[in-house]
């Protein structure tokens, strides 16, 4: 690969990346503008006052956005922890065991991804009532606790662990659970990290279920907080953009922090289908 071609590639990539990233910069810029700035022509890309925090102050003053951020964290955290455990267990079961009906069950679990959520909303809500999960963290986390995608991922990752390790451990008298804890989990750290990030993202950005299951600020999450700035008449873009930025920032921080892990993780896991 000669240098000129490489340089071209680089520029092309940077150009594309910027195009993808520009909407977010535009959102950031809009969040620093006043409603009048937003609707003046010709439009300006950058706000007059780069650190005009009025919109942000308004959001935190009129709604408990800090609380929403905390709630999103808690719910996403619970979901991640539980789904890591359950998905890796189930993935282990599918990868290293052989029992009748295994393939059918596996496919049945994958089929879950095809169920449109709107179709099961009301019955799901009725379940939540029965278990007193309405307006609670547990209720929020419930549909996402086990991830069909996660099981798929884990199965692929665990399949590549050589069976000899497991058999050796069994000969030494280890119980299956011990094998899980001592051998399987450490070997798929990478995939676990990848799943954790993806699950965290999905839970953080989910809207429909939190809408149905929460009624008070107690457990309200950021996506609902953002929706408050849209309504049936008009969208207050300055607030909506600011709220969007507030909801993204924690994710960006986490991602930057874990980015090394994720990429390494995905490489190590091989992501075999």
């Amino acid at each position: 690969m000669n240098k000129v071609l490489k340089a071209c590639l680089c520029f092309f990539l940077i150009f594309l990346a910027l195009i993808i990233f520009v909407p977010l910069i535009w959102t950031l810029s809009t969040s620093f503008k006043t409603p009048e700035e937003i609707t003046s022509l010709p439009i300006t890309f950058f706000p007059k006052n780069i650190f005009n925090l009025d919109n942000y102050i308004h959001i935190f003053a009129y709604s408990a956005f800090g609380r929403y951020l905390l709630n999103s964290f808690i719910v996403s955290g619970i979901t991640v922890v539980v789904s890591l455990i359950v998905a890796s267990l189930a993935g282990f079961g599918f990868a290293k065991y052989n029992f009748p009906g295994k393939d059918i069950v596996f496919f049945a679990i994958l089929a879950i991804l095809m169920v449109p959520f709107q179709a099961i909303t009301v019955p799901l809500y009725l379940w939540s009532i029965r278990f007193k999960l309405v307006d609670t963290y547990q209720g929020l986390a419930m549909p996402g606790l086990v991830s069909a995608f996660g099981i798929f991922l884990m199965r692929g990752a665990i399949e590549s662990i050589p069976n000899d390790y497991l058999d050796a451990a069994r000969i030494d008298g280890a119980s299956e659970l011990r094998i899980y804890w001592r051998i399987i989990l450490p070997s798929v750290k990478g995939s676990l990290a990848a799943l954790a990030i993806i699950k965290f993202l999905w839970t953080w950005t989910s809207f429909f279920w939190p809408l149905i299951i929460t009624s008070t600020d107690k457990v309200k999450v950021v996506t609902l907080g953002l929706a408050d700035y849209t309504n049936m008449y008009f969208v207050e873009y300055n607030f909506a953009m600011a709220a969007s930025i507030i909801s993204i920032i924690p994710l960006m921080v986490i991602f930057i922090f874990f980015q090394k892990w994720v990429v390494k993780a995905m490489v190590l896991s091989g992501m075999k289908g």
Partner: protein
Amino acid sequence: MRRIKTVLILGLVMGMLFVNGQSLFAAKKNIELTYWTTMGQHPRFNEWMEDLGKELTKTYPYVKGVKIIAVPYEGYEAKYLSAMEGKVGAPDMFNGMVYDWAGAHDFCALMPEYLVKNIEEHTVPAVRKLGIWDGKMYGVPGSTATGSSFMMLYINTDMLEEAGMDPNSYPETIDELLDFAKKLTKRDASGKVVRAGYAIRYSGNPTGITEKFLPFLHTFGGRMMSPDRKRASGYINSSESVEALQFFADLVNKYRVSSLEIGSPAASFGHKLAAMIFREGWVVGWLRDNAPNLHYKIYPLPTYREKVGVGALFTWTDLVYKYGSNKEESWKYLELVWKNSLGGCIIDEVAPPPWKEDLNCSYMINRPDREATTEMMSRAPSPNYDYIGAHLTEVASIMADAIGDSLYLKKTPKTVLDEAAVKIDALLME
């Protein structure tokens, strides 16, 4: 010994699980009523309502107050339905449309006599229909942010001056509306409308699209359906209705005083992209916050063959949940809100409620829509109230599709209205 310990611990855990929540025989104490609304964009009105809630403690000492919870408009139907089907987590009161929650479902409590009398005293019969289903009253009309508010004409006086017209003039008839619109429209070099003389509602919620067309339909002499709600054929596709839809579409395509690419009317008006719109009274408050330098005036709707009066299609009213445990207190609270809005709600981000009181009272005197409101309320109410009934949302959707097809020149008004008539007839017969 270990056995007994396990049993005790198990028993304790079970006990905690079941004793969670209110005990059946405890007296009511320290409760907070909940009120759900989709009107999150009126925070000061919601604060006013919460303050009123604190006054409820005088009548019911164990009531701490009322919590106003704003539900996002997108998806609110699913949320309301789930909560009310499940009974747990349902609000004590909520803001909704009576044909949904009392009509299609059975979630509304009947209004107690004392409140019915109060409302009858202060409203014209047509307006009461908003809260009535099947002859019984369930909802309090007009005490909410947009309640029964009706549309009026908003006109940007700065633009009038700029066009060399008298800033105090306004179109009284549809022909004059067209005339004004032609003079106030601005187009760019390629002929595209960059400032609409009259801004049309062409997108968003289908019920909204239909609602904004109805003033035209009615003033041309058309109707969506028969007064007894049994038939749409002969009404929605009458020659007057077709004429109205043709005129509406012509605004965009023939006279080019409107644009389908300019955003929603209220927003365009605030952003100075439209000279005239039809909108309700609450826009006053929004404009004050978001477009303080906009100079405008409000007038009654222009007329043609018939004078269109008060009427709305979104029949938001305050309803009480049928299976709640605090119904008595909830009705008292709604009575409180109603009484206080009669005196004139001090928050101008909402429209004045449709009461019969003197429109020269202190609250109304300073509102820019005072004269227009007076005139509109003196006219016969619009046929909107007759449309309230089963399947209204779906009827409005069918109508909105017809309007859209005409505006975008996919089909002629006659064709779409004939098709709509067939569909709506089938619906009304169910």
